[in-house]
C-alpha cells in the first residue's frame, strides 16, 4: 500500500498539476493522494474558497484516488465556517495549515477543537530555515505547543520540520504528532533518524508533489535501514490508521 499524505494543487495550475498527480499515481502505483490546494501566503476568503473548490473538484473527478485537506487561513473570521463546509459538505479528510499564522496562534484553537470533534488530522507546514524563514512559518516548538494543548488532536508535522535533527525533538514525547517526510531536502539518514526519534508508527510518506520530486522521497524510505514492516507502516499503514476517523491515544510516553 502506498499512500502519499502530502501533495498539492497550485493556484492557476489545476490541469497541469492534476495530470502530474494522475501520472504519478499510475506510474508508481500510488493508492491514495491527500491533496491541498495552495496559492498566496496570506490568502483572503475568496482565494481560500477558490483553492478548496479546486481540491473538491479533483476529489470528485478521482474519488478512488484523491482525498482532500481543507485549507484554512486562521486569521480570517470565516475560517471555522470554511472548515465546516469543507469537512461536512465537501467530504474532506483533514485540515491544512500553511504559513498565514503560526499553528499555535490562539486563532487556531477553535479550528483544532473542531478537527478533534470531526476526528480528522491537521496537516501543519513546519519548516526550519537557516535563511529566509517566513514570518509565521511554524517550527517544531510551535507544533509541540499546539499538540500539548490538544492531546486529542491528530497532528501531522510536515517535512519532518525540514531539519529533522533540530525540529523533531520538541514533539517526540507528544504521541498525537506524526511527521511526514515530504519536502525538498532529502538528506540520507533522515528517515532513520525520524523513526529513531518518533517510532515507526509516527512517520508518514509524503512527496510534496508536484513541486518536489516523488521518487526522491520514495528513495529515502527504500534506502533507509527500516525493516520491511516499518517501511510498510511509513509507506501507507500509518496513514490508513491516521485517516480512519477515530481519536488518537491520549498524550503520554515517548516513541511507540
Amino acid at each position, binding site marked *: 500500500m502506498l499512500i502519499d499524505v502530502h501533495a498539492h494543487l497550485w493556484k492557476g495550475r489545476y490541469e497541469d498539476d492534476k495530470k502530474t498527480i494522475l501520472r504519478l499515481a499510475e506510474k508508481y502505483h500510488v493508492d491514495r493522494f491527500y491533496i491541498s490546494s495552495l496559492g498566496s501566503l496570506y490568502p483572503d476568503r475568496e482565494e481560500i474558497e477558490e483553492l478548496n473548490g479546486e481540491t473538491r473538484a479533483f476529489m470528485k473527478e478521482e474519488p478512488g484516488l484523491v482525498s482532500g485537506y481543507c485549507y484554512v487561513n486562521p486569521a480570517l473570521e470565516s475560517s471555522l465556517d470554511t472548515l465546516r463546509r469543507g469537512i461536512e459538505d465537501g467530504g474532506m479528510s483533514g485540515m491544512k495549515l500553511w504559513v498565514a499564522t503560526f499553528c499555535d496562534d490562539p486563532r487556531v484553537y477553535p479550528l483544532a477543537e473542531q478537527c478533534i470533534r470531526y476526528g480528522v488530522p491537521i496537516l501543519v507546514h513546519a519548516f526550519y530555515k537557516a535563511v529566509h524563514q517566513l514570518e509565521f512559518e511554524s517550527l517544531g516548538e510551535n507544533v509541540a505547543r499546539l499538540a500539548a494543548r490538544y492531546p486529542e488532536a491528530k497532528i501531522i508535522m510536515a517535512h519532518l520540520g525540514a531539519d529533522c535533527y533540530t525540529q523533531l525533538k520538541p514533539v517526540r514525547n507528544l504521541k498525537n504528532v506524526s511527521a511526514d517526510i515530504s519536502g525538498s531536502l*532529502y*538528506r*540520507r539518514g*533522515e528517515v532513520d533518524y525520524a523513526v529513531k526519534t518518533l517510532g515507526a508508527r509516527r512517520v508518514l510518506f509524503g512527496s510534496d508533489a508536484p513541486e518536489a520530486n516523488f521518487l526522491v*522521497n520514495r*528513495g529515502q524510505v527504500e534506502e533507509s535501514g527500516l525493516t520491511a514492516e516499518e517501511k510498510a507502516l511509513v509507506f501507507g499503514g500509518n496513514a490508513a490508521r491516521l485517516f480512519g476517523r477515530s481519536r488518537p491515544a491520549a498524550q503520554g510516553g515517548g516513541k511507540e
Partner: protein
Amino acid sequence: MERMDANCLVGSWPFRKAGRSTAAELRKIHGENGIRCGCVASLNSIFYSDPFEGEEELHEDLKGTEYRQVMTVNPALPGGTGDIAEGVRRFGIAGVRIYPGYHRYALGDPCVAALCAELKKQGLPLFLPLRMEDERLNYLAAPRPLPVREVESFLSEHRDLTAVVLGARPHEIESLGGELRSRPNLYFDLSGLKDGQFNVERLVGEFGDGKLVYGSLYPLYCLKSSLLQVETAEIPDRSKERIFSGNLLSALARPEGRTAVSG
C-alpha cells in the same frame, strides 16, 4: 548495462552522523544497486587545513578497487594548484573538485584561472559542485551559495575545459542551457534533481542524452533517490546507458597521448 557513479564520496561530513562512508561501504551499496565503479572524492579533504592529507587517506582507502579518485583542491591555498601534478603522479587522479562556497573564493578569481590552466595541461576534467546540502539547513556553517550566473560566466571563459557540474537543480540546469548546447565537454549530474517530476525525460528531451551523468552525492543524499529517476525514466535504453556510464567515460577520457605532467 554498466553503471557508474560520477558523484560519490568517502570520509566524514562533520555535521551529521549519517554523512559518512568508507570505500567498503560505498562498494556495498553500489553493488546492491548494480553500480560497478565511479568517481570518488574525499569529504575530509574539504575540511582539512591541507586537503592533500585527505587525498592520501582516500588513495589508501580506494586501493584495490575500480574506483577513480577525484582530488579536492583549494586553489586559494599557497601551493594548492601545485598538488594536482602530484595527485596525477601518485594517485592517478581522474579529475579535480573545487568548493568555492566552502573555501571562500570566487570562480572569477585568478587562483581559479591558474587551476584551470593546470587542468587543461593535465587533460583532466573539473568537477564543480554547486552545493553539498540545501543552503537553508545548516545552522553551524553557512557556505557561500554558488550563483548560476557566476558558474555560467566561468564556464563561458573556459570553454576548452571539460567540466561536470554537480548538484544543480533543474532550473539551474536550464539556466546553463546556452553553455550546455554550445559545447560538447560540459556535463551535469543527477544529484540535484529534487524539484518537479520526470526530470530525466525532460532534460534528455531538451539537451539530448549526451549531457547527463549519473551521480548520487552518496553518502549525503540517498543513492536510490537519483537511481530511481533513471531506472524509471521513459527514455531508450541507449540513452540510459549513456547516462549511467557512456557520458562519464567521455568526460574522463584524457586527450590522445596525454600523460601525467609533473612539476
